[in-house]
């Protein structure tokens, strides 16, 4: 029996799901429940997850809560510095539809308009159990090859960039045309 390409991919996925390294970036108040998840009660290191300092080293990005536009810029920068395959978990209601801040002028309402999100966790704020559950869900998706947010980002890069620009400029009009050299 010989291993074909798919089998190697399966092995790679198996490895990458058991060793998800997280970016150390507290984007919002959801980060408050990260310490409990990391420590003795919930201990996410059981699944091989731990926080890494820089985006280059990391695989999974927990967007912990609402994103101010100023933070969105940093989030996109960090997300683009992460290496494929990379996954995003949208954390809390704020990333889904704005949550408490549905009418705030400075927070974006739907994270998936700006970067692809693989898993959402509902709640404000989500309990550690929910977070652990989302990790398991993500692992399951990776295993099945369904966590393809990073592929989507490459494929629809122009659309994502355009949306990001609109948010950065706080206006819909006057969005500059996407330059040729920007497209990857």
């Amino acid at each position, binding site marked *: 029996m010989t291993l074909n390409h798919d089998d190697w991919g399966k092995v790679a996925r198996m490895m990458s799901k058991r060793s998800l390294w997280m970016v150390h970036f507290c984007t919002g108040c959801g980060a408050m*429940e990260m310490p409990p998840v990391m420590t003795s009660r919930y201990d996410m290191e059981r699944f091989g997850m731990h926080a890494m300092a*820089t985006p280059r080293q990391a695989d999974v990005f927990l967007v912990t809560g609402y994103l*101010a536009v100023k933070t969105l810029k940093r989030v996109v920068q960090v997300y683009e510095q992460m290496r494929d395959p990379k996954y995003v978990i949208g954390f809390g209601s704020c990333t889904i539809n704005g949550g*408490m801040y549905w009418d705030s002028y400075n927070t974006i309402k739907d994270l998936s308009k700006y970067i692809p999100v693989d898993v959402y966790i509902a709640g404000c704020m989500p309990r550690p159990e929910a977070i652990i559950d989302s990790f398991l869900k993500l692992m399951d998706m990776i295993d099945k090859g369904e966590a393809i947010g990073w592929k989507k980002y490459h494929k629809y890069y122009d659309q994502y960039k355009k949306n990001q620009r609109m948010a950065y400029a706080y206006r819909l009009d006057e969005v500059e045309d996407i330059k040729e050299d920007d497209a990857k």
Partner: protein
Amino acid sequence: MKPIEKEYELFIGPNHPGATGNMSYHIWVEGDKVKKAETRVGYLHRGFEKLMEKRIWMQNVPLVCRICVPEPDVNEASYSMAVEDLMGWEIPERAKYIRTIILEMARISAHLLTVGGIAASLGIYTAAQWGVGDRDYLLDVFEQITGARVYHIYIWPGGVRWDVPKNTKELLTKVLDYLEKRMPLYEDLIIKNKVFIRRAADVGVIPKDKAIEWGVTGPNLRAAGYQLDFRKLEPYAAYDKIDFEVPYYPKLGEYEVLSDGSDIYTRTAIRMLEMQQSINIIRQALKDMPEGDVLLKHPQWFAWKVPAGYSYVRVESSKGEFGYFVVSDGGKKPVRVHVRGPSYTHGINVMETIAKGLNVADFAPTAISLDVCPPDIER
């Protein structure tokens, strides 16, 4: 060709283990010494104050607790107290005691995080892990009482949302006993650790004569050598009925006085002592708590009209003075709610000033020891 500069620039945050939440210190470093620091905030700006003007008085209660995540209860308490002040309400006695208990529990849980954070920033991850792990027991009690782990929305204008469950006393005593048992371990790991003392003593000093002028409050002010605490100066909740001593430099209790104060070591020591103090306060409050109502008989929630006026209410949070400046024009919605977070001065002016001449290695511990929490800067 790029301009040649002697300094190099480092960003401590937002995506940095040394950042205290989502904020950024932009530092210019020459060799190993920080020459200039600028605090960059606004990453967490949600426009709370704007949103609060759009919501009716009661709707704001769930909103305010989101201002300071590690210790949300102080926001609820101070907002409620501001409304009560404007309304002229006197809340039931039992509610005062419950508020005291809740606020002190919040203080312990925030201090556990901070002390653990200081320890972690210097490399004692064990202490940080234990601290957060032990904090979880407190969160369990919170959950039992309020129904939520983090955002409790328990303290309301007019008292507290509901009475505490019957077994609270036993539960809480158990947790407090456990925490008291753990304290010596933390002391050995952190405050009595020789390497920690070397790293922390005489580092990140706020000059004593400038501390008040710079607006330093809370444990940081007490570490600078002032016995000033708003729980004593302007007692709220049930603090006037409770007997407690505020620890301050150089009265560090059982800990050695190793420096001229106001450094990382002293700030950590003060926080450790305050945790023990809080445990005492909770025990007293549990003992003295009277029976009775916990919530005033309100008018209909949505029909409140708060009398016109100005109110400033302050609460001694784990970080310092947490104040709410509330202006009402007699309508259903506040005209203006302005929050004074303690980190506003600590994180920006104080940190920018004392950072000069700091070693790069000491920067993050200093920032964390000031207990800067970005959401209460930009709200």
